[in-house]
């Protein structure tokens, strides 16, 4: 029922409920306030006045009493009388106003009021008596009466007033409680009504709002979907209000777009499938969509014609006729397209010509590589055999070095022995020297003795000559004596001769001894030198021993290096073989490529294009020549590369390259 109502009606219902709630709450408020107001007015205008008047009466009576006391004490009579009179008149008016306000239904109040009136009458009587005594100046009675009867009346009077006042105060209290109760009740009622109203209002507000916003949100979603490019949207119209109208309008819109989209999809699928003849029927669409369809059809037409020619040209190119070109002029981007295709065909043709030439060069280069790789392989195998020789030589060196070390050790022992022997020889030489000196000494002694003998022989000779002279002097008598003298002389000569011979022998012995002494000195010196030399020999032998150890160490390092070189060489050999087989494969592939290139129709422009690439061709030839010149360098670089490629396989030597430099 509500669902099909217009949005205005829905909103009216909602707001009506809200307004009704407000009206109920307002009415209730007014009633409650009126009641409270009445009670408050009653309280203020009646009870409070009564209380006030009673209080005034009480204070005035107390004033009258103090006035009377002043009078009794003989103070200013006139003034006190005026106070008394004024209070009486005021009391009268007060009493009159109270009596007007008395609640006739309240019996307790009436009883209290009667008691008060009676007390007042009694007090007024007492006052009159008192006044009589004052007029008469009967001070004794004033004091007597004033002290007893008058004071009693006055006290009764005040208590009556106070009772009345208390009653009024109590009344006011109960009235206040009543007001409080009324207000409390009103508040609870308000809260209940407000909650009820709020619940109803919110329920309705939510229902109505949902009724309005739900279709609107759906519409917004639809619009967003369309905006996001979705067209496959189902819309159900389930109400007849404005939102329903909006949804049905959107449904129409979506259907139009869907139709357009579906046609476009069919067209594009046909185009994707290669059917470029498919077109959209413009009569199925209206207005701008119809124009759009016409435009799309036109685009297809504009694409299809150049494409057709392009297809033909491409077909020719596909059948290896690289001379095919698009001849028709097409406007706009198609001109660029056709130009590009033509340029592509031309470039392809030129490239193939270049490929043809390059293939020939590759063929030549692969031959070069093949022969170079074979050379490398041979060189590597030679290197490997050299390395084998080096390795075996190193082993020999190693064993020789070991021998060296052993020999050095035994040489050291021999040197020690030799030093000992030299010391012994030195000692023997010293002894020999001593012996020589002894010989020399005794020779000298013998020489002296011989000299004496010679002297004696000379003297004997002289004696014999003198005897001969004497014998001659004696003439014939001395003849016998002369013979004796001759004999003596001969003996002396023989003695001298013998002494001389002995002396010669002694001299020779002395000379020999001296020579022996010198020789001993020389020998001793030689022995000392020998000892020094042996010590030097010892240190040298020690050095040789240490050097041998170092040499052994070095040889081991070299051996490791040579092994590494061997490994690298093996790798080189493998690489060279691979390179050779790769070159052969390259050669066969180049031949295949040449056959493939030959099947293309490119002969027309061959010379012109060929001229254009002569410089590059020349460069390529130069490169080939360089390779031919330095095959060893190339292989070296290759091995170097292979070596660098695996740095983790490097030997842990201090500086491998330096070590190898030493052996170059």
């Amino acid at each position, binding site marked *: 029922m509500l669902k099909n109502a217009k949005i205005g009606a829905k909103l009216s219902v909602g707001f009506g409920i809200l307004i009704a709630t407000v009206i109920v709450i307002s009415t209730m408020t007014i009633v409650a306030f009126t009641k409270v107001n009445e009670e408050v007015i009653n309280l203020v205008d009646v009870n409070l006045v009564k209380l006030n008047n009673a209080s005034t009466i009480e204070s005035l009576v107390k004033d009258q009493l103090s006035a009377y006391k002043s009078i009794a004490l003989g103070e200013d009579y006139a003034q006190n009388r005026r106070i008394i009179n004024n209070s009486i008149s005021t009391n009268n008016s007060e009493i009159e106003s109270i009596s007007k306000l008395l609640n006739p239904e309240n019996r307790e109040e009436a009883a209290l009021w009667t008691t008060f009136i009676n007390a007042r009458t009694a007090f007024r009587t007492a006052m009159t008596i008192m006044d009589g005594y004052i007029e008469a100046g009967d001070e004794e009675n004033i004091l007597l009466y004033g002290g007893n009867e008058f004071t009693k009346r006055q006290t009764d009077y005040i208590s009556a007033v106070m009772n009345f006042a208390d009653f009024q105060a109590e009344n006011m209290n109960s009235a206040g409680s009543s007001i409080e109760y009324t207000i409390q009740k009103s508040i609870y009622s308000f809260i209940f009504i407000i909650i009820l109203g709020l619940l109803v209002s919110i329920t309705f507000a939510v229902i109505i709002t949902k009724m309005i916003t739900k279709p609107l949100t759906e519409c917004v979603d639809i619009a967003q979907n369309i905006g996001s490019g979705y067209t496959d949207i189902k819309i159900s119209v389930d109400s007849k209000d404005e939102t329903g109208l909006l949804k049905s309008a959107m449904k129409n819109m979506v259907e139009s777009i869907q139709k357009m989209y579906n046609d476009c999809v069919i067209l594009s699928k046909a185009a994707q499938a290669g059917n470029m003849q498919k077109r959209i029927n413009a009569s199925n669409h209206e207005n701008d969509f119809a124009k759009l369809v016409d435009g799309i059809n036109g685009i297809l037409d504009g694409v299809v014609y150049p494409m057709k020619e392009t297809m033909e040209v491409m077909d020719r190119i596909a059948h290896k006729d690289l001379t095919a070109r698009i001849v028709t002029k097409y406007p706009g981007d198609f001109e660029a397209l056709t130009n590009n295709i033509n340029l592509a065909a031309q470039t392809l043709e030129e490239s193939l010509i270049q490929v043809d030439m390059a293939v020939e060069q590759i063929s030549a280069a692969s031959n070069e590589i093949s022969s170079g790789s074979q050379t490398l392989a041979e060189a590597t195998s030679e290197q490997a055999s050299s390395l084998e020789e080096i390795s075996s030589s190193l082993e020999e060196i190693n064993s020789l070095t070991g021998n060296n070390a052993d020999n050095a050790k035994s040489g050291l022992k021999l040197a020690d022995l030799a030093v000992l022997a030299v010391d012994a020889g030195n000692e023997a030489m010293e002894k020999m020297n001593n012996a020589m000196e002894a010989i020399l000494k005794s020779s000298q002694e013998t020489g002296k003795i011989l000299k004496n003998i010679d002297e004696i022989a*000379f003297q004997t000779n*002289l004696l014999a*000559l003198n005897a*001969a*002279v004497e014998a001659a*002097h004696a003439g014939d008598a001395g003849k016998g004596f002369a013979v004796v003298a001759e004999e003596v002389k001969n003996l002396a000569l023989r003695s001298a001769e013998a002494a001389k011979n002995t002396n010669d022998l002694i001299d020779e012995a002395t000379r020999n001894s001296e020579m022996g002494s010198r020789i001993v000195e020389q020998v001793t010196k030689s022995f000392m030198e020998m000892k020094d030399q042996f010590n030097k020999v010892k240190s040298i032998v020690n050095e040789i021993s240490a050097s041998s150890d170092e040499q052994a160490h070095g040889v081991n390092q070299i051996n490791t290096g040579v092994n590494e070189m061997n490994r690298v060489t093996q790798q080189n050999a493998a690489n060279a073989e691979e390179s050779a087989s790769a070159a052969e494969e390259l050669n066969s592939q180049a031949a295949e490529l040449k056959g493939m290139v030959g099947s293309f129709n490119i002969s027309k422009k061959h010379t012109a294009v060929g001229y254009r690439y002569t410089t590059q061709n020349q460069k390529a030839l130069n490169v080939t020549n360089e390779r031919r010149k330095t095959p060893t360098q190339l292989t070296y670089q290759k091995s170097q590369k292979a070596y660098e490629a695996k740095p983790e396989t490097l030997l842990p030597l201090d500086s491998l390259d330096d070590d190898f430099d030493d052996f170059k």
Partner: protein
Amino acid sequence: MTKKEIVEASSHEGKYLTFNLMDEFFGINVERILQIIAIPDITQIPKTPLFVKGVINLRGKIVPVIDLRLRFKLPEQEYNDRTSIVILKFQTEKGEIFIGIIVDKVIEVLDIHKKEIENTPTFGVELDTKFIQAMAKVKNKVVTLIDVGNIFTDTELIQIQKSK
């Protein structure tokens, strides 16, 4: 050879003491010889001829000594343990005097016969021929026989004598 010469030569026959000077053999007749001694200490005398070497004490007698090498103007030689002195006797007006001559070496006392003696040659001898009495050939050696009386002139003898 004249007759006189032969007589002269034969008159030189007798016993001679042979000695060496410069490895040459000389001979002096033993009649003129007092004694032969080994060379003793010689006391030099100033202001005497060069060949006078000094004087020696021969058993209490002062005997002048001359070097025969110097007297014969031969080169001087240092004395050695073979150098000897031959003491000669001279008859002067003042009586008999002794003079020692220093020779390199005394050899022996020889009997020289007249067949071995030859007259003084006119050449081939280093000495002044006035000192030479004769030449003798003995045992394959040539011995120059010295004429002792001609070794010193009389003035020389006086001079030598003065040096005592």
